[in-house]
């Protein structure tokens, strides 16, 4: 009798264990769970972490970064890397701004190479007009895709190493951005444009003023995420992207237009960088030649933490989101703790390590269960 009891209890325990391991550790949403757990536990110490204002901050920080990471993911999937996203942000930011600004200070811009040609005191070509914002945004996205495609061509056709190609275009375009603005920031952007990054849908009152709930940037990011998911999961291009990333030669033999696929990946990355640039620029209310100089490692870091492989062939939009969530949450929680600014960096490093370690442990378990390649090949 007793024994049977103990047995059943044991089995129950085993079941529980199975559930925990299966549902939490092995699901590819692990990073999500990790972030949530992290959030909840910290919440106990820091009630403010859950305050409406902070949540709205979190969300307005998440979306632009997510946009960038999704772009980066496309390139990582085909086994490349795009370091030029930062400079694409910068150049699109200034170009777009110059296009739609409604007034420039001759003091600052008279020495600009484009002065009098395209831009003047009355602003850029689309300056002042009602369609300024849409035109400007379209312009930015177009440039982004163009630069991306250029990177892609260099990688695919000229067979140059992605790291160097994108590193060089990082130097080049950030230099160009500073060059065409003579390192001035471009202001007087149309309100419609500023609204994207600065206004929210629905506001909740708080102690001091009210805070927005859903920033417009959310919808941009959402749309992009859905589109990206659709392409990767439902379209032929998506299948091709993974195929190229897993084994380029096999893909070529199987009639996959490898070069075109790679160019697409980089173009998407450029596009996303431009979109991110739209969100960031409008949030800061100016076109900035130095936009996003330091965001690169956050982008790639978030992607990798999210589980997207640097060696190609693996990546999901969901993972990108988890990675971003983790990074943003980490950052803001560390600020919330009011650590000294240097402690913030140290803790950040440690947390990233721990997160990665947990991920490793979980992969061990998974390997422990699924037969490995060598095993069955026997």
């Amino acid at each position: 009798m007793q024994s049977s009891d103990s047995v059943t209890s044991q089995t129950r325990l085993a079941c529980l264990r199975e559930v925990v391991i299966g549902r939490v550790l092995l699901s590819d949403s692990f990073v999500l769970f990790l972030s949530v757990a992290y959030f909840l536990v910290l919440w106990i110490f820091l009630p403010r972490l859950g305050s409406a204002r902070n949540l709205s901050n979190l969300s307005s920080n998440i979306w632009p970064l997510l946009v960038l990471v999704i772009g980066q993911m496309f390139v990582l999937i085909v086994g490349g890397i795009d370091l030029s996203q930062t400079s694409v942000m910068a150049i699109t930011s200034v170009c777009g701004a110059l296009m739609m600004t409604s007034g420039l200070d001759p003091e600052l811009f008279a020495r600009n190479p484009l002065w009098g040609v395209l831009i003047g005191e009355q602003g850029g070509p689309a300056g002042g007009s009602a369609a300024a914002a849409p035109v400007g945004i379209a312009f930015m996205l177009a440039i982004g895709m163009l630069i991306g495609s250029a990177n892609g061509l260099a990688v695919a056709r000229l067979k140059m190493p992605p790291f160097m190609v994108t590193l060089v275009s990082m130097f080049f375009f950030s230099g160009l951005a500073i060059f065409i603005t003579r390192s001035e920031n471009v202001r007087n952007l149309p309100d419609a444009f500023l609204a994207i990054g600065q206004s929210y849908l629905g506001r909740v009152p708080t102690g001091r003023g009210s805070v927005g709930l859903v920033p417009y940037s959310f919808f941009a990011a959402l749309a992009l995420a859905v589109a990206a998911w659709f392409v990767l999961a439902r379209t032929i291009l998506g299948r091709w992207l993974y195929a190229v990333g897993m084994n380029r030669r096999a893909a070529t033999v199987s009639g996959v237009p490898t070069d075109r696929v790679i160019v697409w990946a980089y173009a998407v990355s450029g596009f996303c960088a431009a979109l991110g640039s739209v969100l960031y620029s409008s949030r800061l209310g100016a076109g900035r030649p130095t936009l996003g100089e330091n965001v690169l490692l956050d982008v790639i870091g978030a992607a990798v933490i999210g589980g997207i492989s640097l060696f190609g062939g693996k990546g999901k939009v969901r993972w990108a989101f988890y990675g971003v969530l983790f990074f943003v949450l980490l950052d803001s929680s560390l600020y919330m703790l009011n650590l000294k600014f240097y402690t913030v960096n140290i803790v950040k490093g440690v947390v990233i390590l721990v997160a990665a370690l947990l991920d490793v442990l979980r992969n061990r378990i998974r390997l422990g269960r699924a037969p490995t390649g060598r095993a069955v090949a026997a």
Partner: protein
Amino acid sequence: MNMKTLLLTVALLGALDVVVGGLSCSRRVPIEDQLTICFGFQDLETEFWVAGHKAITETLRAKGIRVLERNANQDANRQLEQIRDAIAQEVNGIIIIPQDGESAVTIVGEANRAGIPIAVFNRPPSDRSNPALVIVADNEKIADEAVAYMAKVAREKGEGRKWKPLIVVGDLGDRNAVARRKGFFNVMERNPDLFETPIEVPSKWDPATTLANLEAALQANPDVDFLFTSSDFLYPQIKAVLEPLGKWKKIDEPGHVILGGLDGDSTAYKLMKEGYVDATGVQDLFFEANTIMEALLAAIEAGEKMPEKWMDDPGFALTQENMAERADEMWGYRVLHDE
């Protein structure tokens, strides 16, 4: 093995949170009515910023005020996010050293919306659309003054001969750097007879870059005899380049390169005292710090939500001439003497 790993996982997660949580506990404040002020700065690359940071944080803490420090690492976006976080914590006031004028406008806007008084230190918002307390030093003007003095010296020394000027330019992404460059060129344009076309050396505010580029520049133009650095914190590198070339000479010695810079830090002071440097443009750091703090605290006292006031730091050029009487107005001098 599964169970073990699982446990390990949980343990790690727990440990992590305890660590972080612990940190947070230790930072909790007992008294709630205590004033909290957020001080966000864009980085601490140069002695100027370090001293400013020190002055502000210490004065405030001395007043029993709780200071939240935020380092944005020269990233305007991160700074915006940090200030928002601070606002979320419902601080009583904010002091920022913005990355640049435009982001300043936006950040001030955020603070206004939350009804928290905000003060902008040393880099003005690019327009007055959003009310704030602002203290600025006119970099262009100060640079102009300093270089003007150097030009004067040159004119007296050089018997009508032309001088070969060189300017170490800051990071072109930084508006102050651009302003200082402008100040320098203003003087050049005023004295076309005195100067050949200046040689520009990019420093990107990075000592290593400065060293490399300066060396290359002097290799190409060994006859440089008039040198202005956009920031005093680059003097060590300048010395490292000039010395081997036998150009690191005191003012009265032959072969002296007319030297000048901007900031007014302790190195600059020492070098002037020793007689290597002719002039340095000084922003009155401590004046700026104190004025801004008092203004902000006053505003908080008065319960103003969005105070507006633009204050000027005239700044001045400390030269070998006026050194005797004005040295003690130079913050670098005081930093030196506090230690």
